[in-house]
Structure formats: structure tokens, C-alpha cells
């Protein structure tokens, strides 16, 4: 177990050292959210209407961009070989990597999302729902993403292939996530949506590490 936390710790320290990943994925998220008003025009009504969608899509994309490197960096320098043959089951390895990814690349987005939500003119209640939905839904993104990252590790341009493989699988999260926010904008309860998101996350927690571990072993052999 201590190995598990050691690995998470190493990945987090590495993320901080290597050009502070946290600022970076965060800034990407912010910039994407900023581009939209520029592309769509500044009308508040329109922005509030599309706000939840834009935020979720931006989170998806920021997540996707950082996923690429989940195993790739370790693969390129040979660390992945050593991790795989080490005393930790590959499934646990994947889980540790997923947790580190979520903590360094996704959690910061969730922290800043309320501010961006306000800037897009979302009502206060719905911002609570947004944050909740992101908290419950984004683990799926990291978990499912790990499967794609494991399958494409070792490929040049794996990054773009990854997007193709993974985005279709992200769609349910996007839909439920937006629905939760929309429900709370319409003064309805967001709870059923959050439950669904949580359910999907639990499912992904089972399938993700298994499939990703299989994919990793494959890409390495």
C-alpha cells in the first residue's frame, strides 16, 4: 500500500517540477472558456444558455490533453517497464496513475470552475450543481481515459488517436453533467443526474483499471 502512495506522490511531485502542470492544465481550461465568448459574442443570455455546455466541454478537452502523457512519459524513458515488472499489480499501478492524473490535472479545474461559471453568468445554485457534477463525473474521464492512454502508449501521435478513441466514451458524462446543471438552472433537483454520474464513475472504476492494465501489458510486450 505504501508503494501505491509513493507512486502517486512521485507523479504529483513530477507534475510540479516539470513546468508546474497544475498551472498549465488550469490555464488551458481558462483559455478555452475565454475563447467561447470571443467566438460566440458577448450576449449574456446566449452565454448563460450555453455556459454549462462550454464548461463541461472545456473540462473534457483539458482532461484529454493531459491524459496523453499519463503513461507516455514513463514509457519513453523506460520507467514503465520497471513499474510493470515491479511488485505492484498492474491494475493498482493504473489506479495510482489515474489518481495522480485526477489530482494534478482535473482537481484544479474544478476549483476554478465556479469562478468561470460566474463569469458566464450562471446562477448561483447551478454553480453548486456544476461543481458537484464535476467532482462526481470527472473521475470517469480519468479512468476511461486511462484505457485509451494505455492502448496508445508507445505510438507516435498517440495523442490524437487517443482523442478519437476516448471522446465517444466521454459523451455520457458530458450529457449527464450538463443535465445536472441545467436541472438546477430550471429549479429542479440535480440529484438524479449526480447519482447517475456517480454510478458511471463506479462502473468505470471497475472496468477502467482492468482494461487499462490489459492494454498496458499489451503495448509493452
Amino acid at each position, binding site marked *: 500500500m505504501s508503494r501505491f502512495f509513493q507512486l502517486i506522490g512521485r507523479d504529483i511531485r513530477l507534475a510540479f517540477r516539470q513546468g508546474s502542470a497544475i498551472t498549465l492544465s488550469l490555464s488551458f481550461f481558462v483559455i478555452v472558456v475565454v475563447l467561447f465568448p470571443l467566438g460566440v459574442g458577448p450576449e449574456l443570455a446566449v452565454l448563460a444558455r450555453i455556459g454549462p455546455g462550454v464548461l463541461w466541454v472545456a473540462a473534457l478537452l483539458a482532461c484529454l490533453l493531459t491524459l496523453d502523457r499519463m503513461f507516455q512519459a514513463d514509457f519513453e524513458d523506460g520507467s514503465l517497464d520497471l513499474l510493470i515488472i515491479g511488485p505492484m499489480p498492474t491494475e493498482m499501478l493504473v489506479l495510482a496513475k489515474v489518481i495522480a492524473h485526477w489530482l494534478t490535472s482535473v482537481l484544479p479545474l474544478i476549483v476554478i470552475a465556479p469562478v468561470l461559471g460566474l463569469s458566464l453568468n450562471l446562477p448561483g445554485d447551478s454553480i453548486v450543481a456544476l461543481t458537484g457534477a464535476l467532482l462526481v463525473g470527472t473521475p470517469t474521464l480519468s479512468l476511461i481515459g486511462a484505457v485509451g492512454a494505455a492502448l496508445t502508449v508507445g505510438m507516435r501521435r498517440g495523442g490524437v488517436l487517443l482523442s478519437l*478513441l476516448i471522446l465517444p466514451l466521454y459523451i455520457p458524462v458530458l450529457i449527464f453533467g450538463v443535465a445536472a446543471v441545467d436541472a438546477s438552472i430550471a429549479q429542479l433537483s440535480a440529484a438524479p443526474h449526480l447519482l447517475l454520474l456517480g454510478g458511471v464513475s463506479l462502473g468505470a472504476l471497475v472496468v477502467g483499471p482492468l482494461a487499462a492494465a490489459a492494454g498496458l501489458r499489451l503495448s509493452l510486450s
Partner: protein
Amino acid sequence: MAIDLHKYANPKRFLAITSAIYPWSVWLTVILLLGGLYLSLFVAPPDYQQGDTVRIMFVHVPAAWMALMIYTLMAVSSAVGLIWKHPVADLTAKAAAPIGACFTFLALVTGSLWGQPMWGTFWVWDARLTSMLILLFLYLGYMAIWESFDDPAKAAKAAAILALVGVINIPIIRFSVDWWNTLHQPASVATMDGPKIHTTILIPLLVMGLAYTAFFVMVLIIRVKAEILKRRLRVLQIAELRES
């Protein structure tokens, strides 16, 4: 040749069986397709509202069925390939993917051509349409992953994992999309349950469905054979290389 031969013994039996089926599938395709086209173009009555455009349905609906069926088939043979390591299963899944993608594409194209007279636009973000589009992406991703590995054995496993994760997700995607759509937009555009299906429509539809299936079997056999031969060729080429 020192390469393990038993792996290629299976394909031999497979080739024998399929060679027997193949001529049947060709004839069935031709007959059913001609019959189905005749029934749908001349026998089926034009719709009282849509006129003759309703005939697009006979191309469209079976294509959509095939698109869904082929992905399921791919997932099943991927599972077989993954669990029992049956080499032909992987090749079958690989060979089926482009055909499935074509049917998906056909359903999309005919659907949107139909959408123009029906809804006044080529595309709406209807639940069924959207999930069909996502299915196309799943097909493309599956095909891309086959392309991306140098080693066919690895590619087979990777693609199988993807197909299986994809198939678990299809119901979730379908469900979420349905739900998303009804939330935002009460069914105003596409009520695809359509008019009650008369036998005059149902029969051509089924005949066309069978014709598509026979066509699929025919192309699948050709493609799987080609895949097996390609693999053999590869083995031979490398053997030759080693000798020189």
C-alpha cells in the same frame, strides 16, 4: 519454416468452410437484392404524405440495422479472440469493421437525404442520429487502432479491448443520448416510430435486410480470406528475407 504451424491450421479449416458458403452468399445477395429493390421500388405503396421519398426507408432502415448488428458481431468475435486466442476471430472483427462503418455511413447519408424533404434540414441533433454518429466514431477508432500497431498480434488485442469497452458503452451512450434529447426537446421533429408498419412495407424491408446480411457475409468472407492470405504472405516474405 519454423513458425508455429498450428496457428495456421485453424485458418485452413476456416477457408474450407467459407469457400463452401461463399457461392451461396453471392447468389443470395443478387437474388434478394433484386427482389428487395423490386418490392420496395414498385410494389410498396408511396406514402400519402411523403410520396416516393418514403422509399429511401428501404435503403436506410436495413443499413441502420446492419450498423448495429455488425458492431455487436465485432465485439463478440473480439471477445472470442481475446479469450480463446482464436486467430480467425480477430481477423473477422478486423474485416467486419470497415463494412460496418460503411453501413453506418450509408444510414447517416440516406437518413440525412431523407431528412431534407422531411424536416427541411439535413441534420438535427436527434438522439438516434447522434448515437449513430458516435457509433461511426467507434468504428473509426477501432479501425485506426488496427492501423497503428506494427505487430498484428498486438493490434488484434488492443482492438479487441477497445471493441469490448465500446460495446459496454453503447447502451450507456444510447440511453444518455435519448435522455438528453427528451430533456431539451420534446419530440417535435422526429417521431420515428412512424406510421404503423403495413406488411406491404414490412416485407420489402425484411427482404432488403436479408439482402444486406447476405451481402455482408459475402464481403466478410472475401475480406477475411484476404486478411489470412496477407498474413501468410507476410510470414513467407520474412522467411525469404531470413534465408537471403
